[in-house]
């Protein structure tokens, strides 16, 4: 049931997004700001690793940015 809802949500979001995507974007010479390391989506990699560990051990849900990976027995 959860998977079915996820699939419907994905389709509902992705189809219009993909259709619209071809009109979006920049030319190679317009990537000056996006090329900065701080504009990487995971620029705070180490911070996110540490935060994820804290929240994983304190809250009932985790992940989202990437794979949750293996677990830990954190209490």
């Amino acid at each position: 049931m959860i998977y079915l809802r996820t699939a419907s949500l994905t389709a509902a979001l992705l189809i219009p997004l993909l259709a619209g995507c071809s009109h979006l974007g920049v030319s190679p010479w317009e990537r000056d700001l996006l090329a900065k390391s701080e504009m990487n989506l995971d620029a705070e990699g180490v911070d996110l690793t540490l935060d994820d560990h804290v929240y994983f051990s304190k809250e009932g849900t985790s992940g989202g940015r990437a794979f949750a990976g293996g677990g830990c027995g954190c209490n």
Partner: protein
Amino acid sequence: MQLGKHKKISHLLSAAACTLVGGGVQAEEMLKDWDIDTAVLIYNETDRVSAMEGVVQATKDFGEGHIFSGKLVVDSLSGASANGALPQPEAQTMSRPSGKGQFETAAAETPLDDTFKDTRVQINGQWTQPLMTDLRASGGLHLSKEFDYQSIAINGSLAKDFNRKNTTLSVGFSQAFDQISPHGGRPVALSDMVIDSGQFATDQDYWDAFDATRQTAGEDTKNTTDLVLGLTQIINRRWITQFNVGISDVSGYMTDPFKVVTQVDDQGNAVAQTYENRPDSRSKAFFFAQSKVHLDKNILDLSYRYSQDDWGIDSHTLELRDRFSLGGKSYLQPHLRYYQQTAADFYQRYQLSSTALPDYMSADYRIGEMSAYTMGLKYGRELENGHEFSLRFEYYQQSSSGPSSDLPALNGLELYPEVKAAFLQLGYSF
């Protein structure tokens, strides 16, 4: 013989010294092409757990999109953890999870098992390379080991660029195999904690009773399968965005072997501490969206995650980072995070002893209804040698909630205490 041994040791010492002296130069040469990020985190909860965690992440670009990334995480934690039991108007005594010894809880206080102590080592390796034009593959391995828990995970993903590399679609898969071997063994689900109050004639009688609450067979592993679909889109020169949807299927032992649910009589007085039991399967799904926008003097990073599972836990997470350039090569970055979740269907703060036990129950506040916020500030500065130094402080506060109780003995007691934590992180990248 003795002389020979000394000679060998002196050779070894000389070799080690040479390695240290010469190795410094060699190491510097070797690390020249690597990006290294290091950090140390000091974490402290009010009256509960304190932890220290170190991370070293190393990335090397071998050219033409062939990238290796490795990560080593070591953490050590100790302190007290709520075991799920109710506070009571009188002081309480409970057995430690190992069965060896007891701990006392003062009247009206939340029972905290103060023997919590563990050290964990985690290693990750990830290799990424192009397969053909605009198509990349990545594969990785994750190993994590602590005293009573170990985890091995593999992952693989494919990413395809479209639209002059402005759009990237990705699909990823991960499989994790965890093994749980808790100190003191896994309790028999829904059995009552054995507490020595002088009722046992001999030590052996106590241990026989304790052992009867331990599982000798049954599931002690947990397998997790994750599937994630991602879309990254450059909107314009200043704006990049990402959407992920994922599903996760977990099967195996997910009960927390250290947690109990208090059984109370119709006045609210504790009559037993009963080990919790959780289902052995869990299906989760999530949606995650992130946008990063480069404004004139700051970079906004906004993300949202919605997650739901068949245990009944729905959660929303909203997170904001705003990186302000301070001119020159330093920046200040405030951070805000808000989280809320609904309770698992089988979460209950306590159990009435007059009613039959359900198949599954847990009083673990982490799967109860809660909201939490984090406020933080990071300062970073690029040094003259090109290295970067950063300092980050975060404050986290978690507020649990649930139905109140009209049982007389619980009147005025804190059933859903807050958890407050502060953490400080020092980072250095070169």
